[in-house]
């Protein structure tokens, strides 16, 4: 451990928090945002309810399969890695009263598709082009299944299909199967970047943040009914029996254009080293996960694989001008660390995985869709998720860059640039192509288990 890390550790240990962490209701909170099961396969099913009776009957039969934080977090083998969530339209069909529906925040009531202008999902990313019926008001619920492997996923898929046949008035709008891509010894996406390296830690979960990840974040930033970074819980949707222990999640299905990405690297780098450097400059990390701030000139796979070191960096003093990590690089936009204010009010929990087969090296795009289908969990979509999309991802003037968007994740149409600071003269690549396309998205509310039971007790027309 370096002297600096020791100092970090000591200062962390010495931090005395006068207030005790809120005790999280692990028996009630769905496991989804608290524990990540060791899953290599997943399936998301998007459902529509023709009527409340059907929706409530479906939910009644499924509640016992929903994994709670205490169930999934324990060391016992537990294959019930099921999560359920509802859109605002879905809550209405289930019988939530209008007066109660009106207490949900405006962005959730409108749904993700209606917020496209705010999110910057325009052009090819616009909801008009989304697949699977997710931009429709007929989208009412999601059932998320994580499974140990594809065989277990298939068993669960069959079981749910059989169950759905028994539920009148509940239909599958669409579904997406996900599988981790090999090699399985580290999480990565289709471009080949080591993923899941920076994740906030929730206070009260007992998880120790890795160096550089900052102190645990108040649970109210992710779960309704708990104190957040500003103070006591406020403005919860009513009744509290519905909102307490719930979270909002923003779902995004993002296609990755692996062939276009590789073509771009070849066009801007003659040697494979130069190509890897360009890839790293767009991301802010080498594919190994080694951050450019700590490894600016060449990859350091050992650093990338070491959780004690691979997130232990900041920007303001170490790399203020972006000579290591460009100001507009993906990770510097998505988590500006010490170069933005109010960071503890912008933290989000990411969940999800990859879908589609990996594209073998040396093959141009094969027409098969592949990408990441992920969820962003938070207590306020407008303050956390929408801010990240509106400002960090798609504001051309973020960090005064003038004409840039997130080079990996932003809405790109060939008119934006990426500036790579370099001595003596910076390098600017103009007209970045789109390496990703948003193919679908939605906002869901993930209620606590007691709230799920409350929903099953409702009736129509109240």
């Amino acid at each position, binding site marked *: 451990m370096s002297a600096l890390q020791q100092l970090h550790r000591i200062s962390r240990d010495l931090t005395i928090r006068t207030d005790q962490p809120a005790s999280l209701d692990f028996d009630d909170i769905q496991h989804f945002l608290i524990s990540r099961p060791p899953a290599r396969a997943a399936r998301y099913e998007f459902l529509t309810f023709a009527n409340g009776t059907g929706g409530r009957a479906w939910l009644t039969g499924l509640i016992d399969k929903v994994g709670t934080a205490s169930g999934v977090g324990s060391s016992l083998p537990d294959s019930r890695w099921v999560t359920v969530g509802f859109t605002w339209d879905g809550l209405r069909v289930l019988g939530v009263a209008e007066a109660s529906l009106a207490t949900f925040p405006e962005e959730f009531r409108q749904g993700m598709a209606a917020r496209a*202008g*705010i999110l910057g999902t325009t052009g090819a990313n616009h909801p008009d082009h989304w697949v699977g019926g997710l931009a429709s008001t007929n989208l009412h619920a999601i059932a998320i299944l994580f499974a140990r492997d594809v065989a277990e996923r298939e068993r669960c898929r069959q079981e749910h299909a059989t169950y759905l046949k028994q539920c009148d008035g509940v239909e599958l709008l669409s579904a997406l199967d996900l599988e981790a891509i090999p090699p399985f010894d580290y999480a990565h996406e289709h471009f080949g970047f080591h993923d899941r390296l920076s994740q906030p830690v929730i206070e009260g979960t007992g998880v120790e943040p890795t160096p550089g990840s900052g102190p645990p974040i108040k649970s109210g930033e992710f779960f309704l009914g708990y104190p957040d970074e500003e103070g006591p819980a*406020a403005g919860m949707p009513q009744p509290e029996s519905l909102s307490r222990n719930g979270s909002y999640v923003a779902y995004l299905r993002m296609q990755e254009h692996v062939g276009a990405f590789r073509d771009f690297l070849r066009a801007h780098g003659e040697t494979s080293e130069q190509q890897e450097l360009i890839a790293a400059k767009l991301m802010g990390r080498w594919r190994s996960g080694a951050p450019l701030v700590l490894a600016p000139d060449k990859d350091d796979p050992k650093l990338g694989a070491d959780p004690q070191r691979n997130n232990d960096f900041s920007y303001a003093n170490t790399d203020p001008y972006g000579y290591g990590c460009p100001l507009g690089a993906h990770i510097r936009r998505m988590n500006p660390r010490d170069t933005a*204010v109010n960071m503890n009010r912008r933290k989000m929990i990411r969940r999800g995985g990859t879908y589609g087969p990996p594209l073998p090296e040396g093959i141009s795009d094969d027409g098969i869709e592949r990408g990441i289908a992920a969820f962003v969990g938070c207590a306020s979509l407008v*303050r956390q998720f929408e*801010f990240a999309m509106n400002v960090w991802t798609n504001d*051309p003037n973020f960090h005064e860059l003038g004409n840039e968007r997130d080079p990996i994740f932003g809405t790109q149409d060939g008119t934006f640039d990426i500036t790579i600071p370099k001595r003596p003269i910076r390098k600017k690549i103009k007209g970045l192509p789109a390496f990703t396309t948003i193919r679908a998205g939605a906002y869901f509310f993930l209620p606590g288990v007691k709230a799920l039971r409350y929903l099953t007790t409702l009736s129509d027309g109240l």
Partner: protein
Amino acid sequence: MATLAPATPSTSTKRDWTKPQAMAIPKEGYFQLQNGRYGAVYPRTPACHGFTIIARIKPGREDAIRAYGKTIEKAIADLPDALATLKLHYLRWVLFDIGKDTYFMYQGIFDTDFDKYTEDAVALFAKYGVNTVFENLDGFPEDWKTNVPAFVKFVREHQCPSFLEYGEYPYVTADEIKKALKLKAAFADMLDLMQ
């Protein structure tokens, strides 16, 4: 759903700071409706982004508001970077009478789209007591500390968009001005050293 054209060009065009420019603005305060997270987004003009908030004060509160001038003066003297996040050029606070009522005008000129940094601004306002001044205004939400949307709604309802804005050096940001002055100072130092 139709795609709304952005209120300001999404790609930045090179703007000529040597040529003074004026912009007449429609009554709504924008040319084409583009919604931000908390409502309509107002355009950047030759005089940058900005707002003009005008609200009636509660009777008898004039002295309390005036006293806050000193409070803010001291806060900035102690911590000059306190408001750096807001990318401000200027703030002006004015009190004036209409008939028997006294009104408060808060005019700010800055470089960022207010909608984007709403929460940061509210957090700063709370930290430096600006909201406490607002508590002297008619209709200011009592639960502003926990109700950002209500605070934002108040500000928006009392925002009076300009119908004309003028820039002697249009579209130049405060950061650009500071950089230019720094460069000028550095050159002056260099020339001194060469004597």
